[in-house]
């Protein structure tokens, strides 16, 4: 039995409909994410991004002391990462993609190399 062109077209559009229903949920959330790790004794590398898988090149990432002074004002590079020298005093990292779209990472949560 040969399928008519109409039949195959119907099948194809039904398949497309099912696929788009499946993928629609993944486009809903895009929460900011940031991860920092010590790459050696002196340097810390932070990678920013969003939960929909997109990167965050150019987004502000500041290293801030516990006394609220900005120790390292930075922006993520083209690869969505920033490497900075570990400050001598206590600090936290603030990935700032805009008001209410921030991720804070305390120095205690940065894993050692």
């Amino acid at each position, binding site marked *: 039995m040969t399928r008519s062109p109409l039949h195959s077209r119907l099948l194809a559009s039904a398949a497309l409909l099912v696929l788009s229903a499946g993928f629609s949920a*993944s486009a809903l*959330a895009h*929460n*900011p*994410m940031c991860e920092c790790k010590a790459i050696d004794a002196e340097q810390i590398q932070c990678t920013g991004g969003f*939960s*929909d898988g997109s990167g965050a090149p150019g987004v502000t990432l500041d290293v*801030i002391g516990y006394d*609220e002074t900005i120790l390292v004002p930075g922006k993520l590079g083209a690869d969505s990462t920033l490497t900075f020298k570990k400050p001598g005093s206590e600090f*936290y990292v*603030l990935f*700032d993609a805009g*008001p*209410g*779209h*921030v991720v*804070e990472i305390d120095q205690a949560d940065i894993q050692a190399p």
Partner: protein
Amino acid sequence: MNKAISITPPSRLSRFWHKWRFHINVLLLLIPLGFMPKYFADASLFRGDSGLGQREIGTVQVGPWSLRLAELREEAPSLSGPAGYMKDFTAALCDACVEPVKATYLRIGKPRSLRAAGTIFFGTPYRMGTQMPIPEKTKPDAELWITMEGWDGSMHQASIPLSQASPATVAWLNKQGAKP
């Protein structure tokens, strides 16, 4: 002129299909009916017909302002992809706060600064929503901090126990145990 015509008998599956296809299609139309109660409950929740959320937390006084806070769903935080566990809250500003309040933020634990005030509420001031990340290492006795920023540059903060804001979240934290 003897032409042999061989006709293969239709398979059982084919006969079944041709006999019942219309009935099967009617059954398919009935399937969505089973999802209707959930659909209408959700529609009413998102439209605000059934209140701010499934569980009203109450009015929280934040400096000179106040807001009504609610859990959108009375349930544990849900895993939202790689960003971790999230919990939805809704809020409505007091009538006198609608004009002077610029932004409202929500965070677990006292914010270090206005920049790090947490997630921002978005939407109409009469029914705003936000999705707050719940770190797995959150202590069950943690506090939920509300930060409100005015157009005049003023900032006011208030906190309520997480156990009051979301018993379901505290139960979830207790169940999974304290993460390091």
